[in-house]
């Protein structure tokens, strides 16, 4: 595939690896956090960690949308589907996230709740049009990449007067999570910045991390060569004592980002005062809610389903993993009790989750 295959060339990967190895100083360590779950996946799938010298270490960040949703948010969706009889539409990844009472959306569906997997917000609107006598709720999750599509759908529903459509809004913000990570005191020398989030928000929102925290940020595409080049660029910044926002993904990211998408989002959503994240706790101004003029489309208000905080499974280390403080293999039940077929925590569900990525591609190498 064009613009995919060229960015996976094995010879070029070795070339970048050779540059990293020759430029990384043996006397120091480089702790680099890839914020985004897509990068976590690429690093595991292509064995990028194996191509790096031992003193260049990748730390997984919290940028996996289903991983950071706390149990209580999934419970809300399940309650809506089971108790209020709505048609609950959701992206596939959310289906298997473990919730309270040994349930997940998938299990709720098996027990008769009307839960439907959709690919696009357009599909959710269509379900609402096709079922005028039923209430249809879209579980809207994700970072800045999925937010504009939700905004489009809400505007469309308003324009069409689609009164049986609403959303459970769990959209969260990348820069706020990066602030929370740094405030948590994890030692990081630099960030590999998100790919597709940055196509929307641009490179500008990362400038405080360079200017105020002194942390280099290099925005990278999702292909393995993109990630490796970004690592090389970070090593160079650390060596030079620089802290700048650099952009490896210039083919899709500008400083300003996608203004049209940003405008749509601003029109439909506003900041929540706080939002509870798995792992990061309650983070101020880190998530979005619908603006008052779209209140009719807010499922939380429409059905009065409140968010109730629920503690994680005691054995699960997802919280520490999402803060960059632990690695999946440090969880006692990793790969034994907790597997992708039977996930105990959210990080084992999506292919972008740190535990699932390690289980699928990296567990033998890392456990040695």
């Amino acid at each position, binding site marked *: 595939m064009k*613009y995919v295959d060229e960015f996976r060339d094995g010879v070029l990967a070795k070339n970048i690896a050779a540059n990293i190895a020759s430029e990384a100083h043996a006397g120091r360590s480089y702790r680099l956090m890839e914020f985004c779950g897509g990068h976590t996946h690429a690093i595991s799938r292509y064995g990028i960690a194996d191509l790096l010298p031992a003193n260049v270490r990748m730390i997984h960040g919290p940028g996996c949308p289903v991983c950071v949703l706390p149990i209580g948010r999934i419970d809300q969706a399940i309650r809506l589907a089971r108790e209020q009889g709505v048609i609950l539409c959701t992206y596939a990844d959310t289906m298997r996230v473990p919730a309270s009472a040994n349930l997940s959306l998938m299990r709720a569906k098996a027990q008769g709740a009307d839960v439907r997997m959709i690919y696009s917000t357009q599909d959710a609107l269509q379900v609402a049009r096709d079922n005028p006598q039923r209430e249809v709720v879209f579980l809207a999750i994700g970072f800045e990449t999925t937010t504009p*599509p939700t905004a489009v759908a809400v505007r469309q529903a308003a324009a069409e007067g689609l009164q049986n459509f609403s959303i459970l809004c769990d959209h969260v913000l990348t820069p706020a999570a990066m602030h929370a990570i740094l405030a948590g005191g994890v030692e990081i020398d630099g960030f590999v910045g998100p790919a597709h*989030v940055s196509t929307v928000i641009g490179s500008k929102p990362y400038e405080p991390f360079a200017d105020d925290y002194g942390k280099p940020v290099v925005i990278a595409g999702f292909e393995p060569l993109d990630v490796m080049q970004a690592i090389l660029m970070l090593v160079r910044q650390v060596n030079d004592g620089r802290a700048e926002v650099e952009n*490896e993904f210039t083919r899709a990211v500008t400083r300003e980002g996608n203004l*049209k998408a940003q405008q749509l989002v601003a029109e439909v959503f506003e900041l929540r005062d706080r939002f509870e994240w798995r792992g990061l706790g309650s983070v101020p101004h880190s998530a979005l809610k619908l603006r008052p003029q779209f209140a009719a489309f807010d499922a939380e208000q429409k059905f009065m389903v409140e968010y109730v905080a629920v503690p994680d499974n005691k054995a699960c280390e997802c919280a520490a993993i999402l803060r960059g403080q632990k690695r999946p293999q440090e969880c006692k039940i990793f790969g034994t009790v907790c597997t992708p077929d039977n996930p105990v925590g959210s990080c084992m569900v999506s292919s972008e989750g740190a535990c699932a990525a390690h289980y699928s591609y990296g567990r033998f190498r890392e456990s040695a």
Partner: protein
Amino acid sequence: MCLAIPARIEELTTPGNAIVNLGGVRKEISLALVDDAAIGEYVIVHVGYALQKLDQEEAERTLQLFAEMGQLDELREEMGGNRP
């Protein structure tokens, strides 16, 4: 879920939609988030929407970055010459 791939616009459909080619699979997506996307252009597709257009010149420039310095010629020989 954040998986998003570059795809070529093959056909403009109504209203504000397009058919893209995703590795041989034709799929209808929404162009609501990008301005004036034309047939033949590449867009980054995510959950059924084009998130951003892909700048083909920048893509070439980035590919050249990957080849800078290092032992590229030796590596090519070692791995049997041509690209895989």
